[in-house]
C-alpha cells in the first residue's frame, strides 16, 4: 500500500539529485567544525607532542612541530625527581580525602536538612547557602590566619580542612534527597530501621547521580586548585602537583621537555577521569551550572 505514493514521488526525487550533485558527500557543517575543533585540540596536541620531544628539537628555532622520534627523557627526568612523586601523592591524598569527606558530610548534612526537623534548620540552611556567594578572596586571608592558629599551615591538613565539606555538596544533595519519594524510607522506618541505616542502605544507593556530581566537581576543584595551596603551604615537601609545577617551570626552564612531561602527568588524572566518565562530567557541569 505504501509503495504506491512512494512511486509517485520518484520523478521528484530524481530531479533533486541533479540539483544536489555538486554538494559534498558530508554535511557542510564539518567545513566549519573541523578547523574549530583543531583550534581547541592544537594546544593539547602540542602539549603531548612536546613532552616526547628531545630538548634539541624543542630549543632550535623555529622549533620542530613534530617529534622525529618518541623521546621519553622528559618523563624519565620528572619521574626520577623524588619531589615530583611526592607532589603527586600529596595531590592524590588531598583530593581523595576531600572528595570522600564531601560525600560523607554532604550526605549527612543534606539528609538532615531534607528529612529531619530541628529548630533553626531553615535559617541554618539559608545561611549556609548564602556562604556560597562569598567570594574566595574575601575569606582567603582570614582562613590563612585560622589555619595558622590551628597550627596547620605547611601541612596537608591546611589544604584539606577548609574544603572538608562545601555548602554546594550539602545543598545539592539536600535538593536531590527531597526529590526522592518519601514512601521508600517510611517503609523502612516502620520496619524498625534507624535513620542512619535508611540513609546508607536506601537513600544513598538511589542518589548516585547526585553523589557523582559532587564527587566530580570536588575532585576537579581540589586537584586543579593553585591559589589555596600557594597560600597555605610553604615547604616544597607539602606542595601539591599544581604548585610544584609552577616552581618546576622556573627552575628548569631550559628543560622544556621535562616541564611538559610534568604537565602531562598533572593533567592526566583529570583527562582520564573525563574521558572515562564523560557523560557524568558533562551532566555534573550542567546540573551545577543550571541550578547552582
Amino acid at each position, binding site marked *: 500500500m505504501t509503495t504506491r505514493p512512494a512511486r509517485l514521488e520518484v520523478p521528484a526525487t530524481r530531479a533533486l539529485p541533479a540539483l544536489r550533485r555538486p554538494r559534498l558527500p558530508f554535511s557542510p557543517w564539518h567545513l566549519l567544525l573541523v578547523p574549530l575543533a583543531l583550534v581547541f585540540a592544537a594546544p593539547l596536541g602540542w602539549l603531548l607532542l612536546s613532552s616526547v620531544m628531545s630538548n634539541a628539537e624543542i630549543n632550535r628555532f623555529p622549533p620542530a612541530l613534530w617529534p622525529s622520534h618518541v623521546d621519553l627523557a622528559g618523563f624519565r627526568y620528572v619521574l626520577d625527581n623524588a619531589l615530583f612523586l611526592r607532589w603527586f601523592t600529596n595531590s592524590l591524598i588531598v583530593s581523595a580525602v576531600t572528595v570522600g569527606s564531601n560525600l560523607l558530610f554532604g550526605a549527612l548534612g543534606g539528609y538532615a536538612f531534607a528529612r529531619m*526537623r530541628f529548630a533553626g534548620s531553615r535559617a*541554618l540552611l539559608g545561611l549556609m547557602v548564602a556562604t556560597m556567594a562569598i567570594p574566595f578572596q574575601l575569606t582567603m586571608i*582570614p582562613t590563612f590566619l585560622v589555619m595558622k592558629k590551628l597550627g596547620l599551615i605547611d601541612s596537608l591538613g591546611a589544604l584539606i580542612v577548609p574544603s572538608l565539606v562545601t555548602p554546594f555538596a550539602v545543598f545539592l544533595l539536600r535538593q536531590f534527597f527531597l526529590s526522592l519519594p518519601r514512601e521508600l524510607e517510611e517503609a523502612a522506618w516502620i520496619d524498625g530501621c534507624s535513620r542512619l541505616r535508611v540513609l546508607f542502605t536506601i537513600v544513598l544507593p538511589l542518589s548516585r547521580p547526585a553523589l557523582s556530581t559532587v564527587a566530580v566537581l570536588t575532585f576537579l576543584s581540589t586537584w586543579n586548585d593553585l591559589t589555596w595551596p600557594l597560600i597555605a603551604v610553604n615547604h616544597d615537601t607539602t606542595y601539591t602537583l599544581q604548585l610544584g609545577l609552577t616552581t618546576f617551570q622556573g627552575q628548569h626552564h631550559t628543560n622544556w621537555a621535562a616541564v611538559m612531561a610534568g604537565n602531562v602527568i598533572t593533567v592526566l588524572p583529570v583527562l582520564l577521569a573525563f574521558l572515562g566518565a564523560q557523560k557524568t562530567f558533562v551532566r555534573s557541569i550542567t546540573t551545577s551550572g543550571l541550578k547552582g
Partner: protein
Amino acid sequence: MPGLPRPITVPSRGSASGRGLRHPEPPKTPVAPVQRRRRRETAAAWAYVSPAVLIILGLGVVPVAWSLLLSFQVDDLVTPSRWTGLDNYAALAQDPHFAQAVGNTVLYTLLYVPLSILFGFLLAQALNRRIRLVGLYRTLVFVPFVLSATAQGVLFSFILDPQFGAANSLLHHLGVSPQGFLTDPAQALLVLVGITLWSGTGFCVVVYLAALQDVPPSLVEAARLDGAGTWRVLRHVTLPAITPVTAFLVLWQLITSLQVFDLVYVTTKGGPLGSTTVIVYFVWEQAFKNFTAGYGAASAYVLALALLVVVLVLRVLRRPGKALR
C-alpha cells in the same frame, strides 16, 4: 511495647503533636515516648549537620567579619595588628596600582564574558545537530575546560615563548613578524583573555547544548510551519527559550572572570609593567608577598562590594524582562 509507637513517626505530625498536646494520662514514664523520640531525632539531626555547619560557617561566615576587621587594621600576619580605621581604604583610593588592577580586571571581564557567551552560543548551535563525529567535536571543545589553570598557564607560556615558542614559529611560516605575547605590555592581557576563551568557552557550549535540547521541538516546528526561516526561529523561539540560561552564564562567567588569579600567577605574575595585575592578584600580593594583610583585606572588600553591586544590578535588570513575558 517498643514496637508500637513506631508507625507514627511521620515527622510533620510528630512535631505538631509534640508541642500542642498535653498528655491527659498520669505520667508513668518521666518523658512521653513521642517527646523522647523527638528529642533523640533533634540530637541526631544536629549530629548529622554539625560537621558541615562547623566548617562552612566557621570558615565561611567568621572570615567575612574577620576580613572586615582586618581591613581597618595594619597587619603583617605575624606581629599583633594595629587599628587604623579607614586609612587602608583611603590609601586604596590613592593607589595607582590598585586603580590599574581594577582597570585590568574590568577590561578582562568586558572582553571575556560577552565573547565566551557569544562563542559558546554559536558553537552550541553548530554542535546541536545530528552529524557524524559530533560527539568528538563536543569532546574536543570541552576538554580544555577540565585542565587546571596552572597546566594551561605552563602550556601557553611554552607555546607563546617569544623566542622558542611554537606560536612564533607558526607566524614565521606565515610571514608574520614575531610577537611578544605575554611579555608585551600591550598584548599580555589580551593573550590571557584568549587563553581563558580557549578553556572557558567549552563550559558555555555545554550549558547551552543542554538548554537547546530543552527547547520544545513542537515550538520550532510550529514556527517553521508558519513560514519562519532559520533566523526568525532563532530570534523568536530559541533565544527567548534560553534567556534564563544566558542570564545564569552572564552571572557565572562574571564571577569567575572577576576572580581570575591562577592563570595570571603562572604566566605573567602581574607583569609586564603591571599590565596583567588583576584584583585578586593584587590582594594576594599585598597580603602574602608584601605582608600588608590589612591593605589586602581592604582591597578584597572593595572587590566583594563591587561584585555585590553587579549581582544586584543584574537582578534588577532581569526582573522587567521576566515581567514582559
